[in-house]
């Protein structure tokens, strides 16, 4: 009993601190206006959202507060009586409420004295403080917040009771549903091999139709996501599969972009190669650079490899920028007028056309990545990533496979870089900063190391989500960071963790040689 109340107080403190923090940075106002926008009643630029929307947002947090404390892990008996739950919810709600009350009194009083808080906290305007106090005096407003917190937490705790008692019912219904779906036509559909082909067809059809519909802005965003999928697939091979922690991955991206740009741009060399030839050159040059960079670092492992490759990434960028290579790469100015794709004399550099090109490139990369991963090569890489010494002693040519991983990874990055340069028709040293490497590494980790669907999901989460969250303006990165933290708590192995295939042949074909073998050890058990 005592510990559970302590737990409630602790929970209440956390929620109190978080809500006060959100209030201090002005996020409550933003959240309330977002809610109002969602129900189709957008807020004007100067006015504040309605009190009801604030209550809804805070109410959600308070309900969650009560819900969390209503049942906790230390409960031996999961069937906690309603009275205990209410007490717990009340404790948590009162604790949170005390925080809000104190906050209301302090900030409200300061505001009443006419001090402009915005000097210290840019988002804490007088208006937003009044909004928090429901346009009442600090004491009254604080008490409203206090009472609401306590009441909502109790409601949350009671709701959790119903949810818990309903859980078994839900489970049995689920079970029945699964059993039914396995037996009926749904089960047949599930096991039918053609279903997956149909699904792939539907996805392809969507990929053809959707870019025509959603306009230039989304095509640009999704094009960026696509390029990051390419980069992610490449780095996934290097880091996720072969286990080489390469932090200078952007070097290959830069080499791809620059080699494409140098052979197509009119300035400084005026080679003006055809788009497709230039694309092949970019991919080959990147792959070669992967091998060349790989050769000196073959013997490095772990942290040392990370540091050295980090250096490589920076060296490439600084070289591109340097005065020394100015005649060759135009230094910090970057390269302009890079060629767009042409086919049979027709130029297609529109957003939609380019989106298709990126989709094709991603599909090609997905195809190659999958085939490599599910093969002897992929297994050799995994073996190297798990124990390089033993992998070599088991007969894996570690040097060859590590170089191969770097070459394929670099080729993907080069393809991404070339498309990137071609789409923007410009590339400069500042396109190839360390952040690109870190972003790509993040998306591989967020998606799940060594998992191809994970890379795609990770690219959407890291490159697409911030654009969707643009509504939140300056809080975009805060929410994004919070989402990442939540995700890593809930799914520590990534959004879509890698799985190993089932390969064992349960009844291998008999062979005369094996027939003479006696029963092996432990066979009887």
């Amino acid at each position: 009993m005592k510990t559970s109340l302590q737990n409630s107080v602790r929970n209440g403190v956390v929620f109190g601190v978080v809500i006060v923090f959100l209030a201090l940075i002005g996020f409550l106002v933003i959240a309330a206006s977002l809610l109002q926008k969602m129900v189709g009643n957008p807020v004007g630029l100067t006015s504040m959202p309605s009190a009801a929307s604030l209550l809804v947002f805070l109410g959600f947090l308070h309900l969650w507060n009560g819900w969390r404390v209503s049942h906790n892990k230390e409960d031996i008996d999961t069937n906690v009586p309603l009275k205990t739950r209410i007490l717990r919810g009340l404790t948590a709600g009162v604790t949170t409420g005390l925080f809000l009350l104190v906050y209301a009194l302090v900030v409200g009083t300061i505001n009443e004295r006419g001090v402009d808080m915005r000097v210290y906290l840019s988002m804490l305007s007088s208006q937003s403080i009044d909004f928090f106090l429901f346009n009442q005096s600090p004491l009254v407003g604080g008490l409203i917040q206090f009472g609401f917190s306590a009441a909502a937490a109790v409601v949350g705790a009671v709701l959790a009771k119903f949810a818990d008692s309903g859980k078994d019912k839900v489970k049995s219904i689920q079970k029945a549903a699964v059993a039914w779906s396995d037996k009926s036509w749904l089960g047949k559909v599930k096991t039918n091999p053609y279903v997956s082909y149909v699904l792939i067809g539907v996805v392809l059809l969507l990929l053809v139709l959707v870019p025509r519909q959603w306009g230039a802005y989304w095509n640009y965003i999704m094009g960026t996501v696509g390029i990051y999928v390419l980069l992610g697939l490449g780095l996934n091979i290097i880091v996720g599969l072969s286990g080489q922690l390469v932090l200078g991955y952007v070097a290959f991206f830069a080499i791809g972009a620059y080699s494409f740009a140098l052979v197509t741009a009119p300035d400084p060399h005026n080679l003006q190669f055809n788009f497709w030839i230039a694309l092949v050159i970019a991919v080959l040059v990147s792959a070669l650079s992967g091998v060349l960079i790989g050769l000196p670092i073959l013997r490095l492992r772990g942290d040392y490899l990370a540091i050295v490759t980090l250096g490589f990434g920076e060296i490439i960028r600084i070289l591109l920028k340097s005065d020394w290579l100015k005649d060759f790469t135009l230094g910090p100015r970057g390269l302009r007028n890079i060629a767009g794709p042409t086919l049979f004399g027709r130029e297609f550099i529109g957003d939609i056309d380019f989106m298709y090109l990126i989709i094709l490139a991603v599909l090609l990369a997905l195809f190659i990545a999958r085939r490599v991963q599910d093969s002897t090569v992929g297994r050799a890489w995994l073996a190297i990533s798990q124990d390089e010494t033993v992998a070599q002693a088991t007969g894996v040519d570690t040097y060859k496979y590590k170089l191969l991983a770097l070459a394929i990874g670099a080729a993907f990055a080069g393809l991404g870089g070339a498309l990137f340069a071609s789409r923007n028709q410009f590339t400069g040293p500042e396109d190839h900063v360390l952040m690109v490497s870190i972003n790509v590494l993040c998306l591989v980790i967020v998606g799940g190391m060594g998992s191809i669907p994970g890379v795609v999901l990770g690219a959407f989460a890291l490159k697409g989500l911030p654009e969707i969250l643009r509504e939140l303006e300056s809080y975009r990165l805060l929410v994004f960071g919070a989402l990442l933290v939540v995700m890593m708590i809930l799914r520590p192995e990534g959004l879509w963790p890698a799985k190993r295939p089932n390969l064992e042949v349960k009844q291998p074909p008999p062979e005369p040689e094996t027939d003479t073998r006696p029963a092996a050890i432990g066979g009887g058990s």
Partner: protein
Amino acid sequence: MSKVMLETKQVTKIFGGLTAVNRVDLVIPEGAIASIIGPNGAGKTTLFNCISGFYNPEFGAVLFDGKSIKGVLTDKIAGLGISRTYQNIRLFQNMTAVENIMVGFQPRLTQDWWAAILRTPGYNKEEKFVINEASKLLKYVGLEGLGDHLAVNLPYGAQRRLEIARALANKPKLLLLDEPTAGMNPQETDEMKEFIRHVRDDLGITIILIEHDMRVVMDISDQISVLDYGEKIAEGTPKEIQSNPRVIEAYLGPGAAALSEKYRREKTG
């Protein structure tokens, strides 16, 4: 048993000031089960590491099938036909059991990476062959049905057997087993002992064994070499080793030989 499978000549490995292996001569005939025993820190595993290419000995020669393998990379040595297991099990933990064995097939593969991307008929055939053979090996070591479990999730004894299966995958001529019965109960130890004998008899593989369990060593060895402080102090059949005073001294300390002689006389007399 006339042909010599492995020969070490004056092999010496020095770590800083410590001579871990000191001028060890070994001659292992084909088809033998040879044991290397000795107290902890005697240099047994270091000698294994010199043979399998983990270490490059400072001095001396290692001849496998008549050819020197000193300084050859470990993957090439595996390709020549030497496989090994490890004292502390070293599997590829997050791969399935079958996949672990399939990695062992690496030296025998003929198809290159581009064939894997293009899925050429040759590659598909080889992949099918490898999967079938790996499943067979799995059955051979008694792990049938466990092939799709991650190696890390297998019980201890199964991991030991899986390690041996992986070592057998490249059709070795010589198998180095580093304490294969460590941490096993008497029944498991007996099973392992029989299994090692079967591997030699069925597959004709020469086996070198590092082992602390004397019942195993004395039962299955054709030849025993004793190391102490990096030097070979005795060699011979199990019977010869049991009564060798230097061996008893190395295990039990100076004076122990005399004591054991006394006990024997009291027992018989």
